[in-house]
């Protein structure tokens, strides 16, 4: 056993986990671990606000499926990452947050920059560790990574007191360990999968609802195989967007509050749903009661606690959804079960899809959201990674930006964190430097973490920020127009700041696109740029996101464009 400090042990243990970079910001209580960057190969990526470091780690984790790591100091540094932890927890993203803490003897004394981050973060982390002795550090790191990335992934917090970082101890880096109360994987029950197959085959109007879990477990090929073999139309949740290629004939797109009209319609007409890796969130299903009486539900999920939490199910399959779908694919092959391509249901699905393709009204102006996002889709290579912020632009992206390569679209869908998309795109670009990475943004959200431009420029991480700028907190404005008799309170952004000048002041490229022609040129310029680019696209502040399922109503009651 080698004797070393807790800080050195932290970095050594992280190197063993394959960590190549850390997003963070130093301060008094994490200086010892920062000093170790001078003596190891892990790259440090400096942020201007700890919340952004957490979102970068989150974006890195979602794209690479390995936990991203962020560092923050104690006190305000630690509290600044809380929103990042909550965002990762709500969307089951693997992440490791390492915070400095005041020395052990100072804990509980209201010391300078002390915060009880373990207590505060408890409901928004999968697990947390606070090593009290340097020798406990390696095992905390090993277990932390294991917990973060197995089962249903999530954020893990390591809160390390300064003296634990500074003091030396003989260090053992264990490969083997036990966590008695943690059973991340269950073997899917084959008999339940068989019953699910029987139920699907014997239904008249079966449908697949693919959730975020499908993307987390990369079950793309298995999902496609089941859908094509049984001729099942596929709708997704918003988090599941892009679990299935959206240019596939069986794809209907996301359901939900701002789901595709054809997806909501077909979901409402189905008599049996294979729900994969979803928690049936209110945003996705509206009020399910309206049609659940005639809807048989098969629910596959890795988390046993999700079964029956929001939705009573007829058949539950607990286990990694990829493993469950593999069993289903195998059963279908064995019995050479194949459904006809000309069933009444599939014909109806095709006609409905066709109808909405022709008849969904979009904004008539040249710079309407649909046209802008279809232009982006047209020019982006299919392997590009897209993140979004939260608001109208996010829902327009859901409606009008088709994901062709599965697992290339990421958004803060659960917590709905404005300001997530830009730093997350930086983390995504670090994970996938070989593909273009675009943050589809609105001006309101981008304002919240726009200072990450400094990180993008100084660390040579050339992402593209695609700002649909209505100079308004647009989604709030839409609700005020719809539900509050057009009393517009607290939504006007007053054209401030000028995003082109803002980008330039950070050394990034700023381009304003006021016509389709300018947009075409701007996207092409951004794709060939060596520095981060902000494309500022002024749009009509009165444009609504439609269709719209009002809260507390059923998916079949959509407000449609008039």
């Amino acid at each position, binding site marked *: 056993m080698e004797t070393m400090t807790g800080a050195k042990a932290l970095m050594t243990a992280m190197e063993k986990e394959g960590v190549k970079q850390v997003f963070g910001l130093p301060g008094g209580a994490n200086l010892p671990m920062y000093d170790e960057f001078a003596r190891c190969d892990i790259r440090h990526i400096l942020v201007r606000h700890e919340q952004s470091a957490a979102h970068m780690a989150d974006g890195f984790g979602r794209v690479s499926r390995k936990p991203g790591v962020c560092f923050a100091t104690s006190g305000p540094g630690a509290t600044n990452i809380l929103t990042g932890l909550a965002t990762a927890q709500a969307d089951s993203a693997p992440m490791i947050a390492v915070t400095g803490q005041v020395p052990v003897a100072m804990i509980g004394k209201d010391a300078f920059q002390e915060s009880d981050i373990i207590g505060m973060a408890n409901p928004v982390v999968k697990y947390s560790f606070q090593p009290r002795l340097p020798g406990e550090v390696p095992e905390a790191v090993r277990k932390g990574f294991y917990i973060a990335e197995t089962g249903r992934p999530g954020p893990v917090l390591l809160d390390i007191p300064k003296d634990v970082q500074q003091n030396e101890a003989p260090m053992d880096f264990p490969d083997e360990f036990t966590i*008695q109360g943690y059973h991340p994987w269950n073997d899917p029950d084959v008999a339940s999968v068989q019953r699910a197959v029987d139920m699907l085959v014997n239904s008249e109007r079966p449908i697949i609802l693919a959730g975020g879990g499908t993307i987390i477990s990369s079950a793309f090929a298995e999902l496609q195989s089941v859908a094509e073999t049984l001729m099942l139309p596929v709708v997704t949740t918003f988090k599941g967007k892009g679990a299935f290629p959206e240019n596939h004939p069986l794809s209907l797109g996301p359901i939900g509050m701002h789901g595709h009209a054809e997806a909501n319609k077909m979901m409402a007409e189905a008599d049996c749903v294979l729900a994969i890796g979803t928690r049936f969130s209110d945003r996705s299903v509206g009020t399910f009661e309206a049609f659940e009486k005639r809807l048989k539900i098969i629910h596959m999920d890795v988390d046993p606690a999700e079964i029956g*939490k929001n939705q009573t199910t007829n058949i539950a399959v607990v286990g990694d959804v990829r493993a469950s779908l593999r069993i289903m694919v195998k059963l279908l092959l064995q019995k050479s079960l194949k459904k006809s391509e000309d069933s009444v249901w599939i014909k109806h699905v095709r006609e409905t899809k066709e109808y909405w393709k022709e008849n969904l009204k979009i904004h008539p102006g040249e710079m309407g959201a649909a046209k802008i996002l279809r232009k982006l889709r047209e020019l982006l290579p299919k392997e590009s990674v897209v993140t979004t912020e939260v608001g109208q632009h996010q829902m327009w992206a859901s409606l009008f930006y088709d994901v062709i390569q599965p697992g290339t679209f990421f958004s803060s869908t659960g917590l709905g964190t404005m300001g997530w998309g830009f730093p997350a795109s930086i983390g995504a670009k670090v994970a996938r430097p070989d593909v273009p990475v675009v943050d589809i943004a609105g001006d309101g959200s981008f304002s919240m973490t726009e200072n990450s431009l400094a990180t993008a420029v100084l660390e040579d991480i050339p992402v593209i920020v695609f700002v649909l700028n209505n100079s308004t907190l647009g989604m709030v404005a839409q609700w005020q127009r719809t539900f509050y008799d057009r009393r517009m309170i607290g939504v006007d952004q007053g054209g401030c700041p000028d995003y082109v000048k803002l980008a330039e002041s950070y050394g990034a490229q700023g381009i304003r696109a006021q016509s389709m022609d300018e947009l075409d040129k701007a996207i092409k310029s951004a794709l060939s740029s060596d520095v981060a680019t902000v494309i500022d696209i002024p749009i009509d502040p009165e444009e609504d996101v439609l269709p719209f399922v009002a809260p507390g109503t059923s998916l079949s009651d959509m407000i449609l464009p008039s």
Partner: protein
Amino acid sequence: MWAILSILVENKPGILFKVTHLFRSRNFNIDSISVGVTDDENYSRMTITTYGDDKQIIQIVKQLDKMIDTVEVKQLDEHKTLFRELCIFNIKLSSASDSMEVNKLVNAYGGKVHDVKKDSLMVELTATPAQIKAFEELVKPFGIIDVARTGVAALQRSGA
């Protein structure tokens, strides 16, 4: 529905906080809670009683089970479980006959009388929560000065 949950946890600081926090954040209620170390000092056993419909109780058990610090979570079947709570009452006495009446009740419920004063006495009662509730109703007319309860401790009977 009233439910008794038996939760074996690692005996580490902060776990009681996490368990009770889970009840708060998931909108469940704790009716009573008792915690103590087991014969193996690496583990503690928490006994929590709670109310909810079947679906809620199942969900509470699943959420507790999902916690990494819980080693075993069981909903105990009331009919196959020995469960008891210790309760101490401080009861007001207005007359000499009150003392006799209370003593009779205490004997009937298998309790013990302590600290008899002219105008009050203390009663120690170990019983099921339902029996304690019944006893409480009976002594209420005398005047209850104070009550302290431990919460339920419970173990499933062997072979049950």
